[in-house]
Structure formats: C-alpha cells, structure tokens
C-alpha cells in the first residue's frame, strides 16, 4: 500500500460526514436568504408559527377544550377595541383574537398531519411505481389518474361531507386527495434518477437494490417533493379553511374558516372584523409558505428559471 499522509486526529475525521453536511446546509441557507421575497415568506411563517406555539400566553386557553371558542354572551358582535375583546367578537360572542391565535394552532396541526401523511403515502406509492416499473407502475398510475381527474376541492368536499362534519374528517379528506401529486412527482423523479450512471456504478460495487434506493435514488429525487410539501403547507390550510367555512367541521371550533363563516352574515351590516382578521390569517399563512416554497425551489433546483 502507498504511504498515506498522516491525517488530522481521528475524532475529527469520524464526524467529517456530518461536518460536510452542515457546511452544505449552511450554503443552502445563505443562498435562500439572498432572495428578499423568500425572506418575507420566512418572516410570515416564523410569526405565524410563533403565534401557534405561544398561543396559551397570548390568549388564555378555554376550559375544558382549548380548541373550542369561548363565548361571551354579554358582548355579542362588539367592534375591535372593546374592553376585553381587542379584535371584537362574532355574532355569537366568540372572541376574534382567541380564534385568530388558537386558529393558528389548528392550522398548524392540520397542515403538519396532512402533509406528513400525504408525503408518506405519495412517496411510497411513487417510489414503488417508478422503481418497479412495468405492470405495477401501470396499475398504480391509473389509480392516481382517477384521483387527479376530480378537482381537489370538490373531491375533498365530497369525502368530508360523506364522513360527516368534523375536523378529523377534514384531515382525512385532505390526506386522501393530496397524496396523488407526490406519487406523480416521485415516480417521475425516480424514473429519471435511476437512469443515472451512478446507479449502475452502485450496482457494480455490489449494493443491493434497497441500498441503492436509499443511498442513491431517494436523496437525488426528493427535492421536488420537499418543495411541493412546503407549498402544500400553505395550500392545505387554504382548502381546509374553505371546508370549515362551508360547515364541514364542528361548529364553535377555533378555526379560521369557521370564524370567517360566523362573521359572514354580519359583513353587510358593517361588522367586518370577525371575517377579516381570520381571513387575513389564512392569506398570510398561504402567502408565507408559497413565497418560501418558491425560494426553496429556486435554490434547490437551479434548472427551473426564476420567474421573477
């Protein structure tokens, strides 16, 4: 064997992979922060997440269930700035501030659960289809086509309506509707990535198919899924609020769509506040994740031209 120049101390070398990864992560973050719109998106996200996390400090939790709106029957539809109700109350005495703050938690719960479920299902199905190919691919993709042929909002609405009005059913309905996109993306990515010579090279050194999938194919095909997941974090809250607005979640729950719906009848009478504030929240949430997702795409996938 050839003499190897003495390297640095072993302890440092052992962690080199981790160090290299952190360096790469740092570079990624730096290029993300160069884009002002991405930063704006990130700021919105951080503010809204902060609100969700610190909800009990901003608005004292309702008992017994914090996700139920407290009702103040003595102050129906009071305007913003009233004592005890900074953002006013709804027609049925729900505190708008409470709904806005705890609604952020509800939205966070909704989007995190739905996105993790859909990514999990979508990536699994897409991976099997793309990796196996042939008949398996054909069957899975036809199923996906069926799902894609129905507009997502209407499909989710139908499922939620069939299951009955509750917040859990909205989560279920959204999960059923949203996974197909990931399956599509993942399959296309895998079919593209598995043609790469480094996959052959991995086979040549004796790696098993599962190992090749985990080491070579998955890390090189997951980026568009990450971007889509970020965008969906926003979209899902938007669709979820729509379903709640129509009345597919329990009445009285601290959720932005429900709040908008409660204030809807008062808009013509000039009581704008109970719809406007939660509506703005939905808008900011979706905007934040969309801006951030766009920035992420620009950084992770240099091939797509920035439209800005």
């Amino acid at each position, binding site marked *: *064997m*050839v*003499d*190897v*120049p003495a*390297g*640095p101390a*072993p*302890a440092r*070398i*052992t962690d*080199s*992979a981790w*160090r*290299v990864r952190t360096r*790469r992560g740092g570079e990624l973050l730096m290029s993300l922060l160069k884009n002002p719109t991405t930063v704006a998106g990130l700021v919105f996200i951080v503010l809204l997440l902060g609100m969700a996390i610190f909800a009990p400090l901003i608005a004292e939790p309702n008992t017994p269930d914090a996700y139920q709106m407290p009702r103040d029957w003595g102050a129906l539809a009071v305007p913003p700035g009233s004592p005890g109700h900074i953002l006013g109350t709804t027609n049925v005495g729900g505190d708008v501030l409470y709904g806005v703050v705890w609604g952020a938690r509800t939205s966070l719960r909704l989007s995190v659960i739905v996105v993790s479920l859909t990514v999990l299902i979508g990536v699994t199905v897409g991976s099997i289809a793309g990796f196996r190919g042939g008949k398996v691919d054909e069957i899975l993709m036809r199923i996906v086509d069926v799902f894609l042929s129905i507009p997502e909002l209407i499909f989710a609405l139908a499922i939620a309506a069939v299951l009955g009005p509750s917040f859990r059913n909205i989560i279920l309905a959204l999960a059923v509707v949203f996974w197909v996109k990931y399956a599509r993306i993942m399959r296309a990515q895998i079919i593209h990535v598995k043609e*790469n*010579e*480094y996959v*052959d*090279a*991995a*086979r*040549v*050194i*004796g*790696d*098993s198919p599962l*190992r090749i999938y985990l*080491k*070579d194919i998955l*890390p*090189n095909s997951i980026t568009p899924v990450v971007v889509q997941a970020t965008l969906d974090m926003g979209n899902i809250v938007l669709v979820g609020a729509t379903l709640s607005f129509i009345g597919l979640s329990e009445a009285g729950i601290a959720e932005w769509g429900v709040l908008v719906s409660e204030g809807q009848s008062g808009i013509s009478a000039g009581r704008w506040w109970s719809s406007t504030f939660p509506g703005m929240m939905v808008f900011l949430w979706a905007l934040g994740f969309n801006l951030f997702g766009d920035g992420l795409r620009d950084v992770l996938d240099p091939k797509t031209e920035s439209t800005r």
Partner: protein
Amino acid sequence: MSLIDGIGPEAAPRARPAVASVKDLRVHFRSKVGVVHAVDGVSFDIGDGETLGLVGETGCGKSVTARSFLDLVPMPPGIKAGGAIEFRPHHTCPSCDGAGCETCDDSGRQAEPCDSCNGGGCEGCGHTGQRTIDLLEISEKDLQTIRGNRIAMIFQDPGKALNPALPIGEQVAEVFFQHRADDLLADAGASDGTEALGGALIQRKAGLKTSRIEDFLLSLPPLRGQRTKLMAAVQTRVAEALAETQIPNPRKVMDRYPHELSGGMRQRVMIAQAIACDPDLLIADEPTTALDVTVQARILELIRDLQQRHRTSVLYISHDLSLVKEVCDRVAVMYAGRIVESAATSSIFTDPHHPYTQGLLAAIPSANHERGRLVAIPGNVPELIDPPAACRFAGRCPYEAPACTAHDPLATTITANHEVACFIHHAPAGDEERPTWDRKVR
C-alpha cells in the same frame, strides 16, 4: 507492455487458464421493428493478468458485452439469448500468502480450486480444476458478492458515475462496508464480538445492516467509542485507496462532493473505488473518453501502473485504436455484434487480416499523411434486426465475393493467437466463389 511477457504471438500457449471466458455470448434487444442482435455469438478469453482491448465503432456491441459481465444490461428490453460468461475467481495464493512465489507466478494470487473436483478437473470447471462461475446463470445475490469485489468496472463519464448527493469518502467507503466488513472490524479491534449487544451492533454496522434506531444507539456514549474506531478504520482504508490513485491530499478529497472535483480527479476516485477490493477483473468502459488528452494520458498510465502492481486482468473497451495500442496486450475487434479479428496487439497493428480491421487502421490519420480527404470505410453499419446468415461486413468490403452473402464466416485460427472471421482465410461450405486479396476493385 512488459507485464506479461508470456503473451504474444510467438509465446507458448498460456499455462494458466483465463480469468474469464466469454463463450458464444448472445444478447438481443426487443424493439418495435424486430429483435436487434446487438451481441451475436461473441467469444473471447481474458488471460490472467492480461489487458484485452475490445475495439469497435459505436453500436457494435462492445459495451453491451462488457455490461453483460455484471448483469447491467436492462432486461427487458434486453434478452439473454444464449452463451456463457465463465469467470474464475482468485484468492490470495495459499503457499506464499500474497508475497509472490513459484506456484502463483509471482502474482501473489491464485485461482480458487473447483468445488466439486478440488483442482482435479471435471465437467463443471471445464477441466481447468478452477472454480468456474457462469455469470449469466448465478443469482442476483451471488452476483452482489462478486460485483466490486472480484469484478469491478470503471465507467465512461466519471461526472455521471458518482452520486452527486454523497461526499467522495462515503462513496468509496461503501465498497469496504459491502465486501470487507470483517477486515474493518479487525482494524477497529472489534472482530471478537466483545460486549454482547455492542459487538453484535457494531458487526451489523460494518455490514451496512443497521437501521436508523440501531445507528442512533451506536451514537450514544457506551457504544460511541467502538463506532468511532470503526469509522476511523474505514476512513484510513478509503484514504489509502485514494492515495493509491495518486490523489493528492486524500483526507481532504474525502470531504468533497463530486461536483467540487475535476474530471480527472473524479475518474481517479472511480478507479480507487474499483480497485479497492483488489479485483481479479477490471472492466474499463472507455474510461478516458470524457477526459481531455493530457488527463487521459495520466489516467491510462495510472491504470497500467495499478494493473502491473495488482496483477489484475483488464477488459479495456475503446473506440480509440491509438489508446488500445498503448495499453493492451491483446486486441479483439468487434463489428456489428461479432468479433471479426483477435490477436496480440503487435500483430493486429502490423499484420491485420480482416478487411474491416485493415479499413480501421487505414482510417487513422497520421502526421505524415498528405493533406486532403480523410480515409473512411464506405457504406454504413448494417441494421442488426434479424440479420441474415452472411458476413456482416459484406456490402462494405472491398474483397466481397458471392460466398460472403450466402454464408456466415466463422472465426478461424490462422497463426497462434490470431483469429479471423473472414472467408479469405478459410473456404466456405459449398462452391461459391470465395474472396481473395487480389479482388480489390469491385
């Protein structure tokens, strides 16, 4: 070219059997218009320690032949239509323990004896007495133990053959984890399965069998020390392998991603990975085509140097005759899915016998050529869809005769170690007029 002096046109027949013998290999592809006979009855031997050049133009089937060794041809659309690739794995010479002695011809390695006859010679090993594996027949699992371990491969474009998402060190380490887990454990001083749980876990880690949870357990204090030792052992091996391909500062390069290296460096990494487990056969599929000329020369030198030191046999695939002349002991010329001529390098370049080989050699431009049009072989490569029983070069051949379109010429030995598949050298069956050298003008 002094690696194996025994191999040449004048030398006595090789005493040691070939590392690999391709026998009547047929690989076809199903397409919309018919079955493409991409490789159609290819036979050749790769001698022990020999560098065999497989030459031919694009689409002649040389890459498909090479890829068949490791089952890299996608099936479907590919079809294994017949033949065999016999491979005889080697191990460290038992009588000298790798130092080099009389019995192993100073190479320090020796072919493994046949399982069923233990060196006596039987049907199964083709009377060579050596363990013979048909690479087309064995299971995917068995093949995984051969890939990267006994047979390695270098690809054409090093830029595409490295995973862009993994640092170099981790990619090279993969080979050691995959095939040298025991050695790693020995290096790390954990081979005797010390503490019950830790020992088992660290063994699984060395064989790349750990799950995320187990990995996490290993990163905790009681086991962390062992894991650190194991990783340090791997890193040392990787650094050694990289240093052997003359990569400066291997410890630094290990932390780099492929895109941070130059083409030449990447190819060195690929070579380091390929020779890491000291394979018996190295398949180099146009390893320098994607590199510029100066780098190309250094990489060739490197491959030759490593081959001499490790006594590895090399199957060198190229379309560049001048390269092949430099590196190979023997050359096989492929045309349209067939081998048309094979001989020692010196005799093929000085005394080509097949009209196609002659045409190829005539087409090499040289400095003392007169200015003007470059020489080319007229016509195009034939379609390989359901080819008729005829010489594939008929139609482009200046010596073509009626026999050439009616019969298929077989490879015939004309002098020791020189085979040609052309009717000029052996008469076809039947009475058709056969081609002769004086039939130049059509």
